């Protein structure tokens, strides 16, 4: 499950030591924006040793590397991939070629490190206007792509848009990211809500993201994790409805009915698929009973 993805600054020993107790479904260890240019080497060393020494769940570990065009990006990938985190998050990804290039580099390192080729998955950060327009091609560019992640702060700067809490300026980008991801059968991760003190604003922002189809949402504040998890967790009402849908469909099959209704409404294929997906999520969260 990727409901909540918490950013952990790569230069903060105390946050790294406690990353796994903060309740997030995954943690994004950040070598990019959280680390000043002068501290890149030190942070990289710290992250390498943290991953080696601490009991990180590798399946929950995402490392955000420096932008593709920088020398730090190559050094980051060479240092991190051999440690076998489940995910690398390339930044400022604008086109499919970016992914192809980085995948080639990762493949070389996997081979050299005797890791299974293709095991390192990617969650590209889409944060440019060009990236948004190329979202489908990016999502479709490699089997390594596990999810698309929308980065609204850099994007709105690139778009020369005014960033607001309401988020009308990113409505198109959000929809395009979700559509591209779903078209390629991968997950879609929403941008963080950056006001750490506005919990109600976070809840509303997460509600919008879930309603648009996002799988989860990133956070720069540990205080937002619980709210995000709640927003992206199916309610028991939704789970019960999904169960009723599946039961009604199975009952219809047994009775040889062509069309099945529930509560006076016709149940068609999309409703069944939605119910199945929701029950699958509930199962992963141990909520199916």
């Amino acid at each position, binding site marked *: 499950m990727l409901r909540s993805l918490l950013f952990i600054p790569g230069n903060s020993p*105390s946050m790294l*030591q*406690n990353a796994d*107790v*903060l*309740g997030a479904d995954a943690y994004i260890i950040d070598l990019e924006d959280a680390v000043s240019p002068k501290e890149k080497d030190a942070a990289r060393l710290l992250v390498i040793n943290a991953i080696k020494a*601490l*009991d990180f769940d590798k399946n929950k570990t995402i490392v955000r590397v420096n932008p593709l065009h920088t020398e730090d990006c190559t050094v980051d990938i060479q240092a991190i991939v051999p440690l076998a985190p489940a995910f690398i998050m390339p930044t400022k990804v604008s086109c499919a070629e970016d992914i192809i290039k980085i995948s080639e580099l990762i493949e070389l390192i996997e081979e050299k490190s005797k890791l299974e080729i293709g095991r390192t998955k990617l969650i590209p950060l889409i944060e440019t206007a060009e990236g948004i327009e190329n979202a489908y091609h990016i999502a479709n560019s490699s089997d390594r792509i596990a999810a698309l992640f929308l980065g609204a702060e850099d994007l709105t700067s690139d778009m020369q848009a005014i960033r607001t809490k309401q988020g009308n300026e990113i409505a198109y980008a959000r929809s395009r990211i979700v559509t591209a991801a779903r078209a390629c059968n991968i997950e879609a991760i929403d941008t963080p809500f950056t006001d750490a003190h506005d919990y109600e604003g976070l809840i509303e922002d997460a509600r919008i993201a879930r309603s648009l189809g996002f799988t989860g949402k990133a956070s720069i504040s*540990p*205080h937002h994790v619980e709210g995000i998890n709640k927003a992206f967790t199916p309610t028991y009402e939704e789970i019960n409805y999904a169960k009723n849908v599946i039961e009604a469909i199975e009952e219809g099959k047994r009775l040889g009915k062509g069309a099945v209704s529930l509560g006076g409404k016709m149940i068609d294929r999309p409703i069944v698929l939605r119910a199945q997906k929701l029950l699958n999520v509930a199962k992963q969260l141990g909520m199916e009973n």
Partner: protein
Amino acid sequence: MDKILPNIRESILKSGLKDGMTISFHHHLRNGDYVLNMVMREIAALKIKNLTIQASALFDCHYELIEHIKSGVVSHIETNYMSGRIASAISHGILKNPVIFRSHGGRPAAIKSGRVHIDVAFLAAPAADKMGNSNGSLGKSACGSLGYAIPDSECAEKVIIITNTLLPYPLFPASIKESNVDYVVKVDAIGNPEGIVSGTTRITRDPIALKIAEYAAKLIKYSGLLKNGFSFQTGAGGASLAVTRYLKPIMKELEVKGSFGLGGITKYLVDMLNEGYFEALQDVQCFDLQAVSSIRDNPKHIEISATEYSSPLSKSRATSSLDVVVLGATQIDTDFNVNVHTDSFGIITGGSGGHSDTAEDSKLSIIVAPLFRARLPLIVDKVQCISTLGAHIDALVTQRGIAINPKRQELYEILKDAALPVMPIEELKKITEKYTGIPDKISPIEKCVAEVESRHGKIIDCIFAVE
């Protein structure tokens, strides 16, 4: 008639203070206190020597005591808490004889029983009248409750009130009564308001502390004690105070109405009183301006003396009606003994205060602390100093798990089924050591610089000097 004297020197002379006597002070003005230093300067000028300081607590602002020790004015100290430069100097062996550390309940018990005899009590009062009726609620240096000063006022041979605010007689309500007061001295200032109380106590935003607090609140929820009539005390720092944030919604959900909040009182307990979560607050010390306003204005916010708070010699005491207390720790060992007197290097940084009193009396005592601070582990084989006996601690809550004292097997059984990460303290220790390694043993100098006395009068540990 009045009891007003022109200055502190005159009051010292009138009190008959002589070499070798014991003088007392309270710590309600905390790190903003001017009174102890003002009195000691006059005593030093009068060349009185070999005094015992009997202070409910000493802070960094009292560093001038170091010079008075060096010059022989002060030869002995007894207190409940000590921090800053004076604590460091004691740790380095500046005094010939050990400091006696007591608890907030042990001190009034020792005073009332006569084991401790106070010759002259110099009591700072934010407001007083000409006959010595005094309180902490009024005046520009208001600190709220004067709970720790009350036993001194009742038992000292001579009681001198030092105030910066003289109000018309009779001052009411009076925490310290005129019948116990010998002299009153008005000075320009008794303390620095910024050091006396904080403007507003704030709950930490440290995510680790909040995680610990959340677990602690859940532990209280499942303990069986969270029902109508519930009573509660928590410290004012870190994860301890944050427990109130998580406890409030649980009390709301379960529709629990508490009987009283106790202790050092903060804004958060005041809010809970005002919102109907508790019927009353029993207050021996105010920690912030909201608590000071509340004790002045709200009749349900009650001042209590240290004797009423936790003296074991009282026929009953507030702590003996306490359901749950949440406390901090510098170190805890695998026998659940807790150190709040020294840091991990053995240097004195604090004291029990009400820690051991509330732990012993409450139905459930919870230690909340992160598993490590910087690279220093919380859980050790043997604490540097036993402040509170492990027999009186019921649970340790950390960010990675909860350890229940084996003597509370029934609590362990309840929590096992409550989806909380309960594990043996030894396992938590192992987890910690994966991060910190095992620290080298400290080799203290074989000189006892302080003795920790339980509130029943027994020495339970000794603090050794450091290099």
